[in-house]
């Protein structure tokens, strides 16, 4: 057989895991494949180096002590009468105490919850002391500048690049109209408004 084996068969051959006719077939193919032969030899050398460093079998530490502990445990188990292994439970683990304690705990938690649900002073007060506000302008071309004005005694944000509002828009006239009216619809005036940019 001179056809190239599939990857899985070749991998088994490289690891010396191939047997029988399959091994013979791949071996015949690899006879004129120096790269594959070199690769298999490299894997064999590596395996030998690893085997020289790591022992194949290692005894457990203190085997005598390990076996004696097991023998002692078996002997104690054989000596003890059947049913004597049950340990007397502590009083707080007895049958009646645990349910009563759980019920008392739930009652206490419920009572504390009812006392604190409407409490305003219990919620933490987070004082944000940062003076300068964060500014974010999602629209392209819009810029925002912040400054604290001493003269105006105010926080001032100046927007630049926002489209002007159409001069045709009458705010007081539109205040009483339904949103369906043309005068209140800004969508139709978007083109006009976007052509005028704030100074």
């Amino acid at each position, binding site marked *: 057989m001179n056809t190239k084996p599939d990857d899985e068969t070749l991998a088994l051959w490289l690891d010396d895991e191939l047997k029988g006719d399959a091994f013979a077939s791949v071996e015949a193919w690899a006879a004129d494949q120096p790269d594959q032969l070199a690769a298999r030899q490299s894997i064999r050398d590596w395996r030998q180096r690893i085997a020289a460093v790591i022992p194949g079998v290692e005894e457990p530490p203190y085997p005598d002590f390990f076996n004696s502990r097991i023998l002692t445990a078996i002997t104690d188990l054989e000596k003890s009468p059947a049913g004597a292994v049950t340990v007397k439970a502590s009083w707080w683990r007895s049958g009646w105490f645990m349910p009563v304690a759980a019920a008392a705990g739930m009652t206490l938690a419920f009572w504390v919850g009812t006392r604190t649900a409407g409490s305003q002073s219990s919620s933490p007060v987070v004082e944000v002391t940062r003076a300068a506000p964060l500014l974010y302008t999602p629209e392209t071309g819009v810029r925002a500048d912040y400054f604290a*004005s001493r*003269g105006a005694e105010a926080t*001032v*944000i100046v927007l630049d690049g*926002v489209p002007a509002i159409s001069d045709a828009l009458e*705010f*007081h006239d539109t205040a009483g109209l339904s949103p369906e009216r043309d005068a209140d619809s800004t969508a139709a005036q978007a083109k006009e408004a976007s052509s005028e940019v704030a100074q």
Partner: protein
Amino acid sequence: MKRLSILVLGLLLASLGLGQEADPGKEPVATIVVRVIHATNGDPSAAGDKSKLVSKATSERLQSENRLRFSHYREIGSDTKPLYRSYENWAQPLGSSDEVLVRFEAQSRPSKSTARLGLELWLSRKKVLKTDAEVSAERPLYVLGPAWRGGRLIISVALASAQKPRS
């Protein structure tokens, strides 16, 4: 059958009442006032017949800042809305027009005099600014906004001075 109906109705009303009590996030913790001012160096009547002069104090305050200095200021709309403990709210200062909208929410529990807000300014149904400014009744936030009729719109956001926020 009638007793059963009454019982079911009673339980429903009781559950509604309990539900309202169980949502402290809807409690108003302050009141926010949003005003829209038309500032111009031209003809102030361009703001419309129903616009009104701003107070002298506000006018002086605005004119004392170079970037906000104009010859005339006219208020063309305002809205007063509660600031909820954990819910957002919207101010629509120009009546039913959605040309200028302000979304706000508390970012911390307001003190007696100030509140830090999460703020969004929407112009022409688009969000153009998001910020987290601190405002008070004495120290408002002014946003110099879009141009309109030869001037600029100034959006003012402040705590209501008449009502003390609940601490």
